[in-house]
């Protein structure tokens, strides 16, 4: 391979600056997506579905119908909804960690089979054998649902590798949290993704806490979008509580990645209202902090205000809420009343083939 000419020092500095900050600049220049009324209403419905679904899941957990670990997405809805809305569902792929219910709903996967998985029933999307943290829909190109913190980042790079290998034009989106961002394999994946120009968007959902550890207590560099700098991956810092900014940032990132430039690292600044999991009393933060975010930054309230300003009536939004509550109630009924997996199911799906 011929060696590239060594550029003058100034040129290199400018190039580096361009490569790493150009996307942020593009976003800062025009931060928000301009939706039609119908589009914004659709985002609103999706976010509301996630919230109501998660509230119901929390309730079923309290009733003992859902067991084990259950991580709710309440507060973070705009991230999944905004990003998913920009993807091409026919070719892009998505992978995330264990806080996965919201992403699946945003992908349009039937809430009934998700809820039935949470209750461990035969009709669950993983036949009741995965549970809250381990759900997949290959049909929807949703590749999980992974319980090991950070694993989805390397696996996501593998999905991106497959897109590039097949030249199918798809982009992989790998979601992970501010806690996972401190795992070593994340940086192994950044290195290879940048080295091989893999079509992947790394999405850090920074909700401020890695379980009970505030970002400041666990991270030397708290500006996560800068964490790709060492690998020459451009970063973007995005308000993850504003679905329209999220959508806009996704378009900028996708355009860059689809053009064959390699990965982008997005930091979505968000907040979870509930504890890390159902068993977390969340004593590490004040009630005032949580309340403050709910009142000032709630993504659903924000969208609602804008819809009203666009001329949507309060009554029609109440209708939407009613419809979604009914849908979630049906999902819960379905999940409660579906049978548990039959005992022989214990032995199926261990291996695909018989030897």
């Amino acid at each position, binding site marked *: 391979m011929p060696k590239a000419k060594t550029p003058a020092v100034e040129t290199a500095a400018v190039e580096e600056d361009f490569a790493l900050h150009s996307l942020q600049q593009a976003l800062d220049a025009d931060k928000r997506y301009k939706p039609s009324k119908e589009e914004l209403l659709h985002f609103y419905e999706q976010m509301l579905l996630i919230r109501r679904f998660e509230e119901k899941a929390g309730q079923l957990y309290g009733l003992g119908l859902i067991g084990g670990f259950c991580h709710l997405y309440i507060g973070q809805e705009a991230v999944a909804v905004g990003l998913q809305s920009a993807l091409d569902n026919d070719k892009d792929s998505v992978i995330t960690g264990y806080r996965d219910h919201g992403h699946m709903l945003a992908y349009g996967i039937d809430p009934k089979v998700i809820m039935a998985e949470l209750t461990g029933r035969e009709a669950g999307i*993983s*036949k009741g054998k995965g549970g809250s943290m381990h759900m*997949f829909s290959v049909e929807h190109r949703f590749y999980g649902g992974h319980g090991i913190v950070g694993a989805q980042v390397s696996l996501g790079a*593998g999905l991106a590798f*497959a897109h590039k290998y097949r030249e199918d034009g798809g982009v992989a989106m790998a979601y992970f949290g501010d806690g996972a961002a401190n795992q070593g*394999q994340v940086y192994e994946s950044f290195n290879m993704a940048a080295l091989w120009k893999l079509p992947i968007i790394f999405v850090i959902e920074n909700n401020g806490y890695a379980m009970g550890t505030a970002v400041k207590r666990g991270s030397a560099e708290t500006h996560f979008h800068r964490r790709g700098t060492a690998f020459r991956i451009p970063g973007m810092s995005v308000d993850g509580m504003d679905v329209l900014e999220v959508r806009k940032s996704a378009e900028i990132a996708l355009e860059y990645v689809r053009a064959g430039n390699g990965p982008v690292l997005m930091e979505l600044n968000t907040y979870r209202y509930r504890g890390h999991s159902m068993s977390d009393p969340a004593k590490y933060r004040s009630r005032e902090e949580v309340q403050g975010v709910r009142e000032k930054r709630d993504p659903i309230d924000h969208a609602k205000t804008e819809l009203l300003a666009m001329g949507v009536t309060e009554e029609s939004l109440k209708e939407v809420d009613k419809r979604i509550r009914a849908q979630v109630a049906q999902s819960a009924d379905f999940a409660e009343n579906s049978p548990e997996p039959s005992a022989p199911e214990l032995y199926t799906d*261990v*291996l*695909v083939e018989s030897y």
Partner: protein
Amino acid sequence: MAIELKMPALSPTMEEGKLAKWLVKEGDEVSSGTILAEIETDKATMEFESIDEGTVGKILVAEGTEGVKVGTVIAMLAGEGEDASAVEAPKAAEKAEEAPKSEEKKPAESGTANLASDLKTARDPQLPHGTNMKTSTVRDALRDAMAEEMRRDSRVFVMGEEVAEYQGAYKVTQGLLEEFGPTRVIDTPITEYGFAGIGTGAAMGGLRPVIEFMTFNFAMQAIDHIINSAAKTNYMSGGQMRCPIVFRGPNGAASRVGAQHSQNYGPWYANVPGLVVIAPYDASDAKGLLKAAIRSEDPVVFLENELVYGRSFELPELDDHVLPIGKARIMREGKDVTIVSYSIGVGLALEAAERLAEEGIDAEVIDLRTLRPLDKETVLASLAKTNRMVVAEEGFPVCSIASEIIAICMEDGFDNLDAPVVRVCNEDVPLPYAANLEKLAIIDADRIVAAVKKVTYK
């Protein structure tokens, strides 16, 4: 006094090599650092440097000579004030194979010399009648398996450290880059956890990765993806999301490389439901089972052995030599006792069986070949025939494959046992570096013979 230049050992396992090219000729002045020759080992072509100053006197081994034993004098160097043309070749008695001179210390023999075996395996009776056979090393058989599967299925690719441009750290992927190009034969950075994850993700995304670990010792960095991501996903997804991937590379003790580079991970992976674990011995099984592994819809851990790579065996000349996963192979029929083994242990078991035959004990030798799913039926059928069993395993004894075989015999073969099953494993210590200690730690044919005598009360 003239200096003898001897064939150097250029890798831990090198016993002989090819003198590929002389870069100096008789009469040339050389000094420390002068490249004298190129030597081909089983792994690579290496440069042989002078550490002395002087004049090349006699070149004793011509370039192009193959199979030059380590320690053979290949040239003489005249020191200062000596007449190079008068330097004599050492007398025959001073050649490497002969007894060393009294002031010289004999190089310590590696403990893995215990594991050496020249015995050829018998032809697999399962092969179609009339199949032509050729001779092949295990290394070449593995390479051919990958190449054939890559020709057959464009989804198959090979990824790992030094697999492409370097031609494989142990030359197993030699020539693949040339034939398939850099999109299908991919060099990774040294980043096992990362590339095991990328491979696993690519398999989930519909490709057929063959992930090479330079050795399975390094796969411990990546074991989370092998177990948590690759092995469990099909089950956790209710059968929706498959992970057809092969993790392959050398496993077990190499030679004098110390504890961190000398472990058999067979029992570790065999413990995990959702994985297929294969550990072949001879070239035919290596090829036939690697091809089957690449075609499998399940994640496969394919354990090779560095010390076996260079061994030659008969390999069937078939267009498509694919063997069944999960089936043990009877390597030698016998009626008095069964020796169960796998991987490099099979060679030792066969050696032991030969020696036992001389003493009138007729041993059956079973190569498990696949460690998960384990072929219980073949093991138990043999036990029913011989009523006595020894398990030989190059690996730690505790919670080993041997332990598992013994449990199977207790649970399902108790009434057929005429003696307790005995296991012959490595000593229960991290593998030491010192040659004598290494030798004490690793199994050998003697120990298998002794164990067989114990279970046969001889």
